[in-house]
């Protein structure tokens, strides 16, 4: 990864190793000497937090797998055994279940940050698309994991989600039977979901490596959206970015711990403490909170196939974002109109999330339809047109200028850079 190769191995062993496997040099140039823009704010610390959460989920998950039984007759009880009998089992399971939520909190902040500061724009398209793939993998992993306790919500959530595929003409029904391994969700389904739930986090880890690789090729974006031009625009990753990332990670862990120790079931559903019953559907099926906006989009559309297409489309459209946003100005900081539409989009996503938890009737459906239209319009209409019609504010000549001189007021020409 393209850092400064200033690494000097110390000691005989490190010199010996460096000539055979230059891993210490790679780490040094990637995470120590690596130049980061000097103006990164706290919104840039969530990439590190996400890596940390992936580690938490893998470690707690591997340990939970030592006590869990993936069988339709035993899964529910094995989870209760973890909660009651296994030493610290309650803690490990609550860390894992709340860890999934915290993982999604971090990824949503990370995504909105990228969308506000135009981090998906040229030359970071591949970096962005790898991020969309990571998000899709996270959603799949989260869904698979939620079925494992084999409670009512697990069972019926799995039924509803796998039935999405029955919407496709002709191939739908055979495809769903292929996914189930039976005539309905059952033991074969649970087994394969467990296998895949164990596999996908390592696929995520692999794509994370590609994501970081792509990041280090094109370099980090920054709040001004202006590429670093001289050494004055950057600082070394260590200590500057390391300490900033670590500080917010610690704060993030406090919030995480508050959920785990004080409200561990707040983000779950009571129905999932009822063992799966294939004969009775719970009165009110709701997915986990992090899927709610997409669930609201599904239910807003009165046609099954179109609803499923809209749900998949609302996620896949993110991959096309680099080409849908036509503005030449990267950062939202210098785009007065974009800012308003962006925050409206954030409110729209939160609104859809709230509506996804409401029953699908009356005014809720109408509101969900309005927000669904805005969700898609933001990508298909607003972003392409804004780039053509918006009058943007002048962009600073360099990061150093923006930091040392301050932002340029609207309509003024950029002041000359002070040399000093």
């Amino acid at each position: 990864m393209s850092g400064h190769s200033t690494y000097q191995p110390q000691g005989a062993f490190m010199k010996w190793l460096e000539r055979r496997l230059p891993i210490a040099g790679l780490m040094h140039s990637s995470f120590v000497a690596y130049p980061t823009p000097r103006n990164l704010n706290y919104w840039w610390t969530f990439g590190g937090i996400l890596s940390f959460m992936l580690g938490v989920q893998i470690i707690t998950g591997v340990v939970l797998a030592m006590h869990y039984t993936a069988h339709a007759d035993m899964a529910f009880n094995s989870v209760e055994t973890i909660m009651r009998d296994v030493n610290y089992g309650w803690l490990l399971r609550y860390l894992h279940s709340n860890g999934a939520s915290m993982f999604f909190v971090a990824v949503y902040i990370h995504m909105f940050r990228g969308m506000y500061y135009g981090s998906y724009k040229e030359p970071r398209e591949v970096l962005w698309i790898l991020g969309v793939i990571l998000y899709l993998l996270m959603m799949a992993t989260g869904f698979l994991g939620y079925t494992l306790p084999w409670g009512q919500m697990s069972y019926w959530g799995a039924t509803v989600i796998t039935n999405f595929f029955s919407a496709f003409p002709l191939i739908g029904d055979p495809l769903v039977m292929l996914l189930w391994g039976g005539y309905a969700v059952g033991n074969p389904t649970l087994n394969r979901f467990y296998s895949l739930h164990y596999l996908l986090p390592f696929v995520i880890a692999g794509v994370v490596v590609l994501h970081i690789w792509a990041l280090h090729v094109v370099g980090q974006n920054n709040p001004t959206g202006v590429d670093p031009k001289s050494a004055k625009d950057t600082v070394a990753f260590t200590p500057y970015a390391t300490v900033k990332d670590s500080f917010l990670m610690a704060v993030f862990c406090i919030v995480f711990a508050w959920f785990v120790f004080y409200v561990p079931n707040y983000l779950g559903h009571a129905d999932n403490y009822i063992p799966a019953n294939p004969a009775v559907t719970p009165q009110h099926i709701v997915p986990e909170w992090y899927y709610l906006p997409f669930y609201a989009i599904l239910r807003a559309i009165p046609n099954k196939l179109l609803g499923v297409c809209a749900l998949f489309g609302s996620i896949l459209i993110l991959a096309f974002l680099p080409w849908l946003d036509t503005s030449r100005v990267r950062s939202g900081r210098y785009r007065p109109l974009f800012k308003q539409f962006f925050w409206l989009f954030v409110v729209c996503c939160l609104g859809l999330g709230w509506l996804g938890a409401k029953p699908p009737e009356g005014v809720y459906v109408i509101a969900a339809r309005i927000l669904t239209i805005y969700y898609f319009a933001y990508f298909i209409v607003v972003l392409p047109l804004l780039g053509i019609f918006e009058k943007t504010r002048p962009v600073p000549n360099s990061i150093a200028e923006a930091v040392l001189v301050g932002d340029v007021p609207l309509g003024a020409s950029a002041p000359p850079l002070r040399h000093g």
Partner: protein
Amino acid sequence: MTTVSSAEHTRRDFLYIATAAVGAVGAAASLVPLVSQMNPDASTIAAGAPIDVDLGPVADGQILKVFWRSKPIFIFHRTKKDIDEARAVQVGRLPDPETDQKRVKDGHDQWLVLIGICTHLGCIPIAHQGEYDGFFCPCHGSQYDTSGRIRKGPAPKNLALPPYEFVSDSKIRIG
């Protein structure tokens, strides 16, 4: 090494193409067991054999629920009112037009046998609920009438009918 002009066919070209062809066939063939293993296994299929259900104990207006191939089957002993309601509808106006007569066996108009799975996303509808006295799905609000036909909501199709036959007047075989 002499340079061979690209127009000439060498033994290496033959080996290259032959290896690629065998490799492609092998890779495709290896997909067959990998995909096929996901389908229902032999024991699951065997357990899906036909079942006999005695209709004797099912009272007027009652719905008996049995499982066949892990699917809930509703056996609805319809009252005269239920049948009349189902037949008073203008078939052409239904989202999935089908007459009530086609959904029951001749001479057994009172028996409606359905797969009790909402055609939207697979939840189990609640019987005797909704605006049409039939079935109401709690998940996304689909409503079915006393013939199990979709009347309102996001479900695209009528409740499916399992294959079944009357073995005698009071016994059916599902499957």
